[in-house]
């Protein structure tokens, strides 16, 4: 803070000096321009004189005699002009030739004048900029400085890998300190919204949650390294579960300032966001970064908003009344439960599963045709009532699409909300209690008010399926709501498909 203040003090001084120097240059330019304009005027009168001089053979004039006297005399040889060419060279020429020379010189003068005008304009612009800069640093204007503190490098590295703009409109993740006014406004709004929440932090509890978040983040990182997901989010968000870890807010790899990113983060994980976030709109997802460090106003410098990017986990954001994100780990789910954030999520994403591909036709069949359960439900016909969808994707996990498929394979006649794509981990969590989900529609859920996201291609979700199987995380909410809680949440990451199917069918 002190450093910032010092810098702020130095900056205006430097800026001031810069401005002064710029102004000096501008003034110098103006002086030169004056001079050259005068010269040009002189040449023009000379030209006129040259034109009229040869009109008469001789003129009667008063010849100056010394400094104080004149004498009447005659001007003869009116057409013979001795011209100083420069550098002690003279030439005797006629009036017309002299005129030509004068024209030639005028050209020079004009070009010099143009240059001077240009430089003057440039420097005037620069003066304007430095004045703006001064205003900026003095926090007098409407500028808001948005700063992001970069977190751990490791996370960033992992994030960076995930950050691949696979979609045309997905944005590569950037961690940038951005000073964009539009975003400023956004940030301002968000920051102001967050400010209240920040004041209500309960530190001790938050510390715990923070610790939980860290652990989860580590888990996810490992998973990620395992899976190597590619982020296929439209927003170019990071795919994975590791994104959750980012939510801590310290390591931001994903720049969500542009956001109205559709990733609604599992706000639940950020302790201090808490209920505050519930009231905030989805668009303030990006603001969550701000939450980590509340908007700071510095009296003597620009109001600064500090935030850190966190990778948002790709989760299906279907507001199915459950405002939790499906988390792969139990911890997360519990946190979600605790933190009940409303998610107006629209699933962004495309499920990103890097690793699992369909290798045999049987995989396809398993996915697309419910052979085992004898319920061949074609993909398209899955869309059913919202309640089912919500139940399915209640966890707003991004892998909901995968979840759906999984359910299908397991004989669920769930309405497949293909819109939801979630992280594989998330999808997995949802898969755990398929039946339960079905049976318990949104009794405790809020009304669905989410937005439908376009379907994810099946292929993408297929890997989710395979991945989801082993991960049978328990969703605490589900457990609450569902009669039949599903497989243990702590299941190992990989479980054979058959076992998983068996478990699911139980």
């Amino acid at each position, binding site marked *: 803070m002190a450093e910032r203040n010092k810098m702020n003090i130095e900056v205006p001084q430097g800026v001031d000096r810069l401005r002064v120097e710029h102004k000096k240059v501008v003034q110098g330019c103006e002086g030169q321009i004056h001079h050259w304009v005068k010269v040009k005027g002189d040449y023009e009168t000379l030209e006129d004189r040259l034109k009229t001089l040869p009109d008469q053979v001789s003129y009667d004039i008063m010849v100056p005699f010394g400094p104080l006297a004149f004498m009447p005399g005659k001007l003869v040889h009116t057409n013979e002009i*001795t*011209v100083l*060419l*420069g*550098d*002690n*060279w*003279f*030439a*005797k*020429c*006629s009036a017309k*030739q002299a005129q*030509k*020379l004068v024209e*030639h*010189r005028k050209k*020079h003068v004009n070009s010099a004048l143009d240059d001077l005008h240009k430089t003057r304009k440039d420097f005037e612009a620069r003066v304007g900029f430095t004045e703006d800069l001064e205003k900026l640093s003095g926090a007098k204007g409407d500028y808001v400085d948005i700063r992001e503190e970069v977190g751990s490098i490791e996370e960033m590295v992992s994030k960076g890998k995930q950050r691949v703009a696979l979609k045309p409109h997905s944005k590569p993740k950037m961690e940038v300190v951005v000073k964009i006014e539009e975003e400023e406004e956004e940030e301002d709004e968000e920051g102001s919204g967050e400010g209240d929440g920040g004041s209500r932090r309960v530190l001790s509890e938050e510390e715990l949650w923070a610790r939980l978040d860290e652990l989860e983040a580590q888990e996810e990182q490992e998973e990620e390294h395992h899976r190597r997901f590619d982020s296929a989010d439209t927003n170019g968000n990071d795919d994975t579960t590791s994104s959750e870890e980012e939510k801590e807010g310290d390591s931001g790899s994903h720049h969500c300032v542009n956001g109205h990113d559709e990733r609604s983060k599992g706000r639940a994980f950020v302790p201090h966001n808490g209920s505050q976030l519930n009231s905030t709109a989805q668009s303030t997802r990006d603001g969550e970064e701000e939450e980590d460090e509340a908007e700071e106003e510095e009296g003597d410098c620009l109001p600064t908003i500090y935030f850190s990017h966190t990778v948002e986990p790709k989760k299906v954001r279907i507001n199915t009344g459950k405002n939790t994100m499906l988390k792969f780990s139990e911890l997360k789910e519990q946190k979600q439960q605790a933190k009940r954030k409303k998610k107006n999520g629209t699933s962004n994403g495309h499920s990103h599963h890097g690793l699992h591909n369909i290798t045999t036709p049987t995989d396809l069949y398993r996915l697309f045709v419910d052979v085992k359960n004898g319920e061949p439900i074609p993909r398209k016909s899955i869309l059913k009532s919202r309640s089912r969808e919500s139940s399915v994707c209640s966890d707003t996990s991004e892998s909901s699409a995968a979840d759906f498929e999984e359910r299908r394979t397991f004989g669920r006649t769930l309405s497949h909300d293909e819109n939801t794509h979630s992280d594989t981990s998330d999808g997995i969590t949802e898969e755990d209690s398929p039946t339960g989900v079905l049976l318990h529609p949104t009794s405790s859920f809020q009304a669905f008010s989410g937005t439908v996201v376009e379907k994810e291609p099946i292929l993408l979700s297929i890997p989710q399926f395979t991945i989801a199987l082993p991960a049978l995380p328990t969703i605490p909410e589900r457990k609450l709501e569902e009669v039949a809680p599903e497989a243990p949440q702590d299941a190992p990451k990989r479980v054979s498909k058959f076992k998983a199917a068996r478990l699911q069918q139980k």
Partner: protein
Amino acid sequence: MAEAIQKKLQSELEKYQQMQKDVSKSMSARQKLEAQVTENNIVKEELDLLDTQNTVYKLIGPVLVKQDLEEAKATVAKRLEYINGEIQRYETLLKDMEKKSDQHREVLSSLQQEYQRAQGLAVGKV
């Protein structure tokens, strides 16, 4: 120890200042040459505008000496070349001097640091 460093510092400082002066002198000479170049260019162009019918004079002291147009053109061209050559020479000279002055600056700064350290030690000792 500190005094020795101080003396060294002083001498280096003086040398550096001398260098700076040389640099500025060369710079101003070069600027003059630049002005001459422009002037001679204009003369050349204007001579081209004239024809042999006009008489060309050269001012040598208080005397205007008649010159041949062609001769004048040649003279001016030669003078231009000469001036350009001078400019090149001055440029290389300037570069060298800049480098030397940079070196001097570094030496100076290191000496200064030493001196400050010595000062600090001396103060500590005292």
